[in-house]
């Protein structure tokens, strides 16, 4: 005999399924969606257990985050130093720190809690761009400790501040010849370190870089907790070397019935030689399960715009900074894209600057000319700067975009003033253009770079407000319905999971996000304030942590 259906009822169910856009009841069997509609519609499925606990709530398809990093589950082992309030995996809200003094104070508290006298004090999320001038210097961190190293990683992950002990242990002195050691007017080291070389040495010699711990099972659970609290039921782990140890951790957690998250890891191509990477991708594809979906491959072409390491087309950086870095040069990119494309892989390509996006588009175009493939869904990740002409090429080639909408709020003011200038900043993260041209797109957080919170990301794409409450390029705003699609079906499409998640349709996983209010009728400026009441993954209900 077939098991009885489980029926959830809600004030309104927004299905994101255009054939039946709204419902009040959804029937679930074996963790999958059996049907939906009004009470009468689901009665046809026979005797059912009616679950009315969400009767006054609004149900949506579970949110899909197309660009996040599971290592956020590890960063919370260390104190958070960001400017904005942020909720940790235990539900505790860490108040934002509004100045260097407050940062030093939090670090001193962390120092006081350490038992091992040699252990470093490590912390993350620091972003002095909001302090309007002063940078942190070595003397600030020497007030935290003069006996143990203090290592602070910035929000971007591309900059560090360290104290004198850490400088000494790393062997950095005034006479050290190393790019990326920031100096004061007298040539003395300020303790600020830029770029992978200087930071990498601190990581190895001093230890304690918050964003570099290997992902383990407890870390995955913490990440899943953060995702669950934000209403996310499917999340990318968009850059992972996918060692056997990591894959074993994934298998362990995703094998549990109550684990509240589907994980979509992307193989970091740079961690392997070309042929080894393709072989590893083939091997992993056979190891997917319902909550673990291998198949994506991640390439990183340039750096970050706010770090001035993204590759920009003319006229380059607004403040005259030299052009950024190719992490992979165009000539090399051509070979890598061609090889993975020909093997059948699904590429997710980090391109922040428009020159990097253009190069990626060009190389995908060449790969398609050599090996035509319909429905490849290669995706530009971040994709912050393409103009309309480049978007037309993106559309013509069937490329998807996952747009970093959160940047508008967090760094939009800096982009207008320093990196891009007013005209390009007004069309950065151009969801409006993508929507008008019919480009398949998603929007993302890049957690932990910005917080995992799809409703906030949707709020950014809808309202385009910066942290100083300036509206950046109103023509690129998108309607709420389009933003909701971007955080559900849009993201699922970029990960080739739109047949399984992202909308409420028969046969798909019973993954829902339960909201306190209806985002389609709420004030668009209140979108980010709508509470996530619970999530459902495969029919299994999880409530947020306290």
């Amino acid at each position, binding site marked *: 005999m077939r098991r009885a259906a489980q029926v959830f009822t809600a004030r309104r169910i927004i299905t994101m399924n255009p054939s039946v856009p709204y419902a009040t009841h959804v029937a679930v069997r074996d963790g999958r969606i059996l049907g939906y509609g009004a009470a009468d519609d689901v009665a046809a499925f026979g005797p059912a257990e009616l679950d009315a606990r969400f009767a006054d709530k609004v149900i949506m398809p579970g949110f899909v985050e197309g660009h996040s990093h599971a290592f956020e589950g590890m960063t919370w082992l260390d104190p958070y130093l960001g400017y904005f309030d942020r909720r940790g995996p235990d539900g505790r809200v860490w108040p934002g720190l509004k100045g260097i003094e407050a940062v030093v104070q939090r670090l001193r508290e962390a120092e006081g809690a350490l038992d091992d006298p040699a252990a470093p004090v490590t912390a993350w999320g620091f972003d002095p761009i909001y302090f309007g001038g002063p940078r942190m210097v070595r003397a600030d961190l020497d007030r935290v400790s003069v006996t143990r190293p203090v290592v602070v990683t910035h929000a971007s992950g591309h900059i560090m501040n360290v104290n004198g002990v850490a400088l000494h242990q790393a062997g950095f002195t005034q006479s050290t010849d190393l790019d990326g050691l920031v100096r004061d007017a007298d040539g003395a080291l300020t303790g600020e370190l830029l770029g992978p070389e200087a930071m990498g040495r601190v990581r190895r010699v001093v230890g304690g870089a918050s964003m570099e711990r290997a992902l383990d099972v407890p870390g995955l659970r913490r990440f899943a907790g953060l995702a669950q609290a934000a209403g996310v039921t499917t999340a990318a782990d968009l850059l992972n070397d996918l060692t056997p140890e990591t894959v074993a951790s994934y298998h362990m957690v995703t094998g549990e019935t109550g684990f509240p998250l589907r994980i979509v890891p992307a193989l970091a191509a740079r961690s392997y030689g070309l042929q080894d990477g393709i072989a590893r991708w083939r091997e992993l594809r056979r190891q997917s399960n319902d909550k673990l979906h291998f198949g994506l491959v991640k390439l990183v072409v340039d750096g970050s715009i706010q770090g001035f390491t993204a590759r920009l087309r003319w006229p380059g950086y607004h403040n005259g900074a030299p052009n950024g870095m190719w992490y992979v*040069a165009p000539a090399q990119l051509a070979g890598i894209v061609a090889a993975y494309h020909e093997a059948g892989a699904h590429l997710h390509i980090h391109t922040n600057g428009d020159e990097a996006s253009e190069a990626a588009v060009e190389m995908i175009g060449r790969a398609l000319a050599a090996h035509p493939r319909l429905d490849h869904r290669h995706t530009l990740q971040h994709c912050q700067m393409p103009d309309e002409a480049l978007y037309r090429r993106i559309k013509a080639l069937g490329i998807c975009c996952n747009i970093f909408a959160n940047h508008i709020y967090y760094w939009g003011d800096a982009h207008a003033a320093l990196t891009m200038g007013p005209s390009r900043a007004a069309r950065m993260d151009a969801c409006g253009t993508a929507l008008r041209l019919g480009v398949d797109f998603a929007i993302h957080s890049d957690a932990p770079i910005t917080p995992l919170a799809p409703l906030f990301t949707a709020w950014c794409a809808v309202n385009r407000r910066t942290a100083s409450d300036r509206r950046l390029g109103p023509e690129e705003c998108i309607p709420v319905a389009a933003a909701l699609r971007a955080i559900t079906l849009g993201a699922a499409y970029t990960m080739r999971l739109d047949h399984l998640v992202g909308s409420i349709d028969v046969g798909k996983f019973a993954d829902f996000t339960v909201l306190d209010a209806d985002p389609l009728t709420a004030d668009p400026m209140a979108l980010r304030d709508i509470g996530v009441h619970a999530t459902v993954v495969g029919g299994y209900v999880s409530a947020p942590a306290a």
Partner: protein
Amino acid sequence: MIVVPIPGPIPVTVIGGFLGAGKTTLVNHVLRAGSRRYAVLVNDFGALNVDSRLIAGQDGAVVSLANGCVCCSIGPDLGGTLATVAARRPAPEHILIEASGVSDPWRIAQLVKLEEGVALDAVLVLVDAAAFPEQLADPYLTDTLERQLARADLVVLNKTDLAPPGLAAAAVRRIRGDVGLVKVAHAALPDALLGGALLGDSPPCAASRFHAGPPEHGFRTWLWDDPAPFDRAALAAVLDGLPPSVLRLKGMCSTGRDGAPHLLQLAGRRWSLTPVPAGPTPGLVMIGTSVLPAADALAALFRTALLTKTAVPFPA
């Protein structure tokens, strides 16, 4: 001349250059020849295509060859990999690092300088003589190529059999007018230019007090074996004023009134003078391009730096 190993840290040579410039070919030559106990750090071991019959064993990421050389993928942590390789026993006699085709090799050199037990020998940047002018004109590539050359000690113009090197050489000169430029084909760089045996192992000839050797691979060598001590400041002035045709200079010399022994190493514009325990016979070997100044001119120049001689201005 007595063969005496020069003491000190393991020399590290960084091989840079854009994709296709010949870095992997060069590394393959070095590994196959096995003229010394080389350790080679590469980006992608698979790309090397090392003959499996040459492989004697594998220990983690380190592949040992039958001829005593080892090869290792760099991985995400260059400093850590370098420390691991340098700590091997028997210790490598020389370490080569193949930079990625898009990186600035000087930034790798900076990391080398921070590691203990190793010393930066030189940064060599390979340039594809056939493709370079076109690569440089590609707006996607211009600044990457310029950054690679900006701090090179020596530039190796490769594939000169495929294209007359004039255009590429002129393009390099526009970026770095002062840099030593070596022209080769098939990435066949003489061992001496890789920082290998300049002195102590197999000097080409030691019959005369100073001597310009016959052109070998189109290069010229010159020897200095006057044991008299140099005046340090005068020597520095001589070294700083050497023309770009001087590619390398290496050997033992003494400086100052106490005649303290030093190891002198020069690659392109960069040189170092490191105190060493007494022992090795003094003598310097220079290798340069075919337009290296004549032996007597070089001898006259170095004589001006001797402590016992009155320094005379070098004719411009």
